[in-house]
């Protein structure tokens, strides 16, 4: 399966999500760092924007009610799984 466009949008999410993860770990041991805190919040905003846009096109990214079921059927079991996507 060629998932070119989907993989491209997913890559932007992976990059933003990685930044958020990295800042999260850093803030765990540097909770007073105001610059890191501001970067984390900004990254969060960007990440959410990309996630909502992706979900409109390809279905939910998160299970258990953290993502909307934007389509009129249960797309969770239909869109490709992480190990099936060809990047």
């Amino acid at each position, binding site marked *: 399966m060629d998932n070119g466009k989907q993989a491209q949008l997913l890559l932007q999410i992976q990059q933003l999500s990685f930044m958020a*993860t990295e800042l999260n770990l850093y803030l*765990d041991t540097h*909770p007073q760092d105001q610059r890191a805190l501001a970067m984390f919040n900004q990254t969060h905003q960007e990440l959410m924007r990309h996630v909502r846009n992706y979900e409109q096109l390809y279905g*939910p*990214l998160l*299970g258990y009610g953290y993502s909307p079921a934007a389509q009129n059927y249960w797309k969770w079991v239909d*869109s490709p799984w*992480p*190990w099936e996507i060809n990047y």
Partner: protein
Amino acid sequence: MWVYEKKLQIPVRVSAPDPRMAKYVISQYGGPEGELSAALRYLNMRYTMPTGKAKGVLTDIGTEELAHMEVVATLVYKLIDGAPIEAIKAADLGTHYADHDRSLYWVNAAGVPWVAAYVSATGDPIADLHENMAAEQKARAVYENLIHLTDDPLVKDVLRFLREREIVHFQRFGETLMDVEEYCRQKKVF
């Protein structure tokens, strides 16, 4: 609790199936310094940590290790997927195929199944954090060994990313150790 996110932490690509490399990489799935060991080691240790920082670091790094387990699993899957049975036999992966076909299993590179004895938990936060720092260095070393075992630049990319993460985790555990040592000193004073 945990919520599943339907994505890998990073894209995982391989140039071509390579069952021999799969046999080596699977060690970071179910070997002593692998990602299952790492995730379980940290998530299990959280309960006896004395500070919010230490509990946070263990929760967050433990969760990232679960994501790494999925990255390694995908890498192994893609290295085996589509490989003909002759290639599997030629790579001496027949020993794996006999019991597991192309499915994944928690084994080291020699096929030895995962055991809980790979992980320790003493209940002493100073000892446990040292254990984690050593574990991160050992995982980094194994990723470097694996990088030497492949010529596939796409596989190398994935292994390099995972190696870098071990260095960052080592750093965060070091900071946590200093913080917990400080906490223990203050407790003794008052």
